[in-house]
């Protein structure tokens, strides 16, 4: 009844149960946080706008400023933030093209202002980008130390690409 094996087993089971419970509680506690992030994005320049291999391609310079500090809780490992261009074309009901992304490892670095060229190619499936109206969406995925992942976004509307290639 009270052999070494039984005690070791009971101890192991108990500690694993407590650990699982603490992990679950840490994940649930994330729901108590109601973040209020803010962001502002500006397209400062269209560097290049051409047709390459039959598809429209844009290179642009972006000014991104955001304050995502309120996303961080004690269970947050990192926040993955990215900026995506979203538009509709005759062929596709939705095109999402990631332009820039970053990993924010700590709350101190969650307020930033950067100027950057698009990190990934802004390429259409076809040639629909001339004069195209598009949204820029700042999206973030909160990666927890343990438990459920969260995601949300800020949509910024009213951007328009030039009418002519350059």
């Amino acid at each position, binding site marked *: 009844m009270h052999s070494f*094996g039984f005690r070791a087993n009971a101890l192991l089971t108990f500690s694993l149960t407590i650990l699982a419970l603490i*992990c679950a509680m840490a*994940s649930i506690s994330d729901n108590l946080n109601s973040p209020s992030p803010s962001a502002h994005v500006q397209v400062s320049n269209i560097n290049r706008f051409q047709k390459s291999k039959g598809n429209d391609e844009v290179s642009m310079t972006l000014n991104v400023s955001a304050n995502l500090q309120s996303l961080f809780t004690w269970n947050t*490992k*990192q926040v*993955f933030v*990215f900026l*995506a261009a979203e538009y509709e074309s*005759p*062929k*596709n*009901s*939705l*095109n*999402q*093209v*990631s332009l820039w*992304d970053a*990993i924010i*490892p700590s709350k101190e670095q969650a307020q930033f202002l950067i100027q950057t060229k698009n990190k*990934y190619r802004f390429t259409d*499936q076809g040639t629909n980008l001339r004069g195209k109206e598009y949204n820029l969406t700042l*999206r973030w*995925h909160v*990666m*927890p*130390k*343990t*438990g*459920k*992942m969260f*995601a949300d976004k800020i949509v910024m509307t009213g951007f328009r690409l030039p009418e002519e290639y350059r």
Partner: protein
Amino acid sequence: MGWIGEAVDSVESLRIRQFLSQAVSLGMIVTSALIIWKGLMCVTGSESPVVVVLTGSMEPGFKRGDILFLHMSKDPIRAGEIVVFNVDGREIPIVHRVIKVHERQDTEDVDVLTKGDNNTGDDRPLYAHGQLWLQRHHIMGRAVGFLPYVGWVTIIMTEKPIIKYLLIGALGLLVITSKE
């Protein structure tokens, strides 16, 4: 001499009963594990509801040995989501982030491009030869939850099979020899 024979008989039948009950309890453990796994498959809609991260391509978010919980819903796939996909001709599924989505106007078809957070380029070199986009059927699920370190158990067991056999043997012995 009759009472000795009776005693032996009763001990014998006791042993058989005990053996049977141990066999049943062992069977119960195996089947309940199977039920939990299949039940998870039903709830999450994914054919593998839990995956272990095997490479560092999503660091610092996911490290080798972390566990991801998958969910496969009818919801459309969107940029930024972490998906698990199978490439034709590759056995091991890959866990990476979606960076581009092109969703067709009239059909359900969708073109998806992925990239590992820790990789410099996108995943096209990982795809099958000449493949530019992932389609819906390549995707096994999207990651919804995360548990660190637990996956090391399976990594150690697949890389050092002897530990697996030792563990199974010890557990089996424990079940058979334990009373009650």
